[in-house]
């Protein structure tokens, strides 16, 4: 019966091509616009590390000014970053199975090969735990040894791109690279790694690319490396030297901990609270304890990686789809009422209401399906347009299979929703009324 109904639907739609085109266009445009925005949000809001996002925690301590919260609009939020002092103290905890304090710095890579011009690299100053913690894939070698974290040794992990530039993509483990004035030994080379969102440091834009090189955090303190990224300070204190900065209440360090289960989360929370209590006794931490552990997804939510603007546009896009559906309901109703005589005849010949209902549901479903196919095209065009408008997110936005299927399903469901009322109406038609021509 389904294929019979499908054939009837095809014939019926082909019979009034203009009206059919209007209905398909309304569905396609509605779904196209809605799915373009949805696909964009889906791309930037997806869980960047689904395997363990609930075991990775951004660690935040609230050591901000006693008389003023870090963020006036959301006073319950602890500051985004840590001071260097606190980050170093937190590294003493043995609760997390892995942890890393980190910040960004800018280095000039000076290739030994004079044919390659020196170039600028963004370096993530971090710990060797960073790599296994965030499941970073290696092409060659691996993370540096623990002792380099302690001693601020000159070791580096190169991104694939940096290794391609410096060594033509060869295995460079053990070789030397000059950054600025110093020489570093390559410990490892990453394979292609591009998380959807730079979740571990969204301070300078969540959609920035992954850093070019990775080095031990301790180098920054030992060699007085100027960090890049955000630094926020609240305290009236003199900062003349690098040492002043390290000892200041200025925050510029990101800190992540891996806590595999609920029990360790609680233990770590207690550990942090005990730490800040102790610091309060020393005259720091003027505010009550507000030490926060946020999973990756919570953290991205708090940091509003998907902001109000995006959500406002999304809600308008959904309303847009609704408006297109109302439009479609009107057209389908008109179309079905025009078919009333034939429907009456089918009823007279023994079609039950249910049979008529199914037949017309198949018809609107077909409209939805065709609309969905065009909708995919429109969403694709829409995303291409968005890539032009927002080059930063270009790499993220794509129509994957999930989205393509979702587009068709949304279109069919939308069309069926739109068709439900008209279909119900035609089922209620009294068959006798349409059999006489007079």
């Amino acid at each position, binding site marked *: 019966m389904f294929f019979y109904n499908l054939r009837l639907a095809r014939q019926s739609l082909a019979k009034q091509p203009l009206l059919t085109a*209007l209905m398909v266009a309304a569905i396609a445009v509605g779904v196209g616009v809605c799915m373009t925005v949805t696909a964009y949000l889906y791309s930037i809001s997806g869980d960047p590390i689904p395997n363990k996002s609930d075991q990775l925690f951004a660690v935040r301590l609230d050591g901000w000014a006693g008389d003023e919260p870090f963020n006036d609009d959301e006073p319950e939020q602890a500051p985004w970053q840590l001071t260097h002092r606190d980050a170093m103290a937190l590294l003493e905890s043995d609760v997390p199975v892995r942890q890393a304090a980190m910040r960004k710095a800018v280095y000039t890579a000076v290739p030994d090969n004079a044919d390659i011009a020196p170039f*600028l690299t963004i370096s993530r100053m971090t710990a060797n735990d960073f790599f296994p913690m965030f499941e970073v894939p290696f092409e060659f070698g691996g993370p540096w040894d623990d002792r380099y974290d302690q001693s601020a040794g000159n070791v580096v992990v190169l991104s694939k791109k940096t290794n391609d530039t410096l060594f033509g993509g060869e295995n460079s483990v053990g070789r030397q690279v000059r950054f600025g004035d110093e020489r570093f030994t390559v410990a490892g080379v990453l394979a292609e790694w591009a998380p959807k969102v730079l979740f571990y440091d969204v301070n300078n834009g969540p959609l920035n690319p992954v850093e070019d090189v990775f080095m031990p955090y301790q180098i920054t303190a030992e060699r007085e490396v100027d960090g890049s990224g955000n630094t926020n300070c609240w305290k009236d204190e003199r900062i003349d030297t690098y040492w002043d900065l390290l000892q200041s209440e200025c925050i510029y360090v990101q800190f992540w901990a891996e806590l595999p289960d609920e029990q360790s989360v609680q233990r770590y929370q207690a550990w942090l609270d005990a730490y800040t209590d102790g610091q309060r006794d020393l005259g720091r931490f003027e505010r009550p304890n507000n030490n926060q552990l946020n999973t990756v997804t919570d953290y991205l939510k708090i940091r509003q990686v998907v902001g*109000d603007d995006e959500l406002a546009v999304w809600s308008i896009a959904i309303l847009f789809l609704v408006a297109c559906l109302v439009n479609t309901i*009107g057209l389908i109703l008109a179309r079905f009422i025009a078919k009333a005589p034939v429907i009456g005849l089918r009823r007279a010949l023994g079609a039950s209401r249910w049979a008529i209902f199914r037949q017309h549901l198949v018809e609107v479903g077909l409209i939805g399906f065709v609309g969905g196919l065009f909708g995919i095209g429109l969403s694709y065009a829409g995303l291409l347009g968005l890539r032009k408008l927002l080059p930063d997110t270009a790499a993220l936005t794509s129509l994957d299979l999930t989205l393509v299927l979702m587009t068709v399903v949304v279109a069919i469901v939308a069309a069926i929703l739109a068709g439900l009322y008209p279909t119900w109406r035609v089922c209620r038609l009294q068959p006798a009324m349409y059999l006489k021509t007079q």
Partner: protein
Amino acid sequence: MEIGPILSAMWRNRTGSVLVALQIALTLAIVVNSSFLAYERTEFIGRPSGIDEKNIVTITSLGFGSDYDHDATIDADLALLRSLPGVVAATASGHVPMSGSGSATGYRASMEDGAPMENGNYFEFDEQADEALGVNIIEGRGFLPTEIRRSDDPNSERMPEQAIITKALADKLYPDLSTAVGQRLFNNVGESAEIIGVVEHMFGSWVHWQNIEQVVWWPVRRSPPSTYYIIRTQPGQRDSVLTQIEPLLSASNRTRIIRNPQTLEHTIKRNYEGDSAMATVLTIAIGLLMMITGLGIVGLASFTVRQRTKQIGTRRAIGARKRDIIRYFLTENWLMTTIGLVLGTVLTYTLNFQLSQLFDTSRLDPWYLIAGMLALWLLGFLAVSGPARRASLISPAIATRNV
């Protein structure tokens, strides 16, 4: 006009009428709110920055290695840049305005308790800064070449002697004074500098920062190893200067990297990307929705005309003129549109209220509603006029035909 019969005909076909009205209402709500949001963004992007955006290029120099001499490099670079034909002025700078990168801190007018602290976005500039940005110093004077502190100065960690601030910051810090020139500007630990000039207006680093107009200039060079150059050109010379500077600077000195030659216009555009994307997406959505709604009305009206062929023929047979038929359909559509617009007004404000609650958008300017209503009346009129004209062409002879 025969409003009564039209209304009763609409009542008999109330589902269809309700659907048209509902669609008009939704379209109004979406179109008005979207155009309001889109226009707000466009206005936001179009705010005057005070800077001669169109004629400025910027470039970065980043030194490396032990041979690099920061001050000597900047001296040579500035001499080179300022000698280029078409260049009006050039300044070494710690940051580029409206680039998203910069520094800010709190400033006060005095160190007395309770003296308010204001945020100031500070830039390291030299004596050509006003010329290089194309901004006006309306009170006092600009920096003198001798006042610019070099990076090798032993006092480089201390606050400089002089500062220039924007009028917006001056008005906040010294609201009771006729001019801020001659006043002292304090930082959070009590160091101070003399204000020697006031800039009429300029934007700082972050286009979404609420204090974007509160800017402080320091007569210092950025600490090694990097610096920006801001270069203002004569009108029409920008693009040729842009293509020259990178190879010239790169060739002049091998102890640094020259990066990112860029027009300021491009940098600003990148910083407003989210806003302009939002405005564009909303504008496209408005256009598409108007199109869909218009075509929907055309489709429904054509359908109605076809359904009523016999009735229309009968009307014609008993003496209705063509224009009476046209008027009938126009009136019917006008009524449905108007009902939709009344409903739509409620919906528009509901949506605006919800959006403002959920996403912190601003409250609607009623003129947008009025403009939206006029647009939809016009759209309804245009959409129905075709089918109405076709209806008027139906032959009166239809009446006697037994279809």
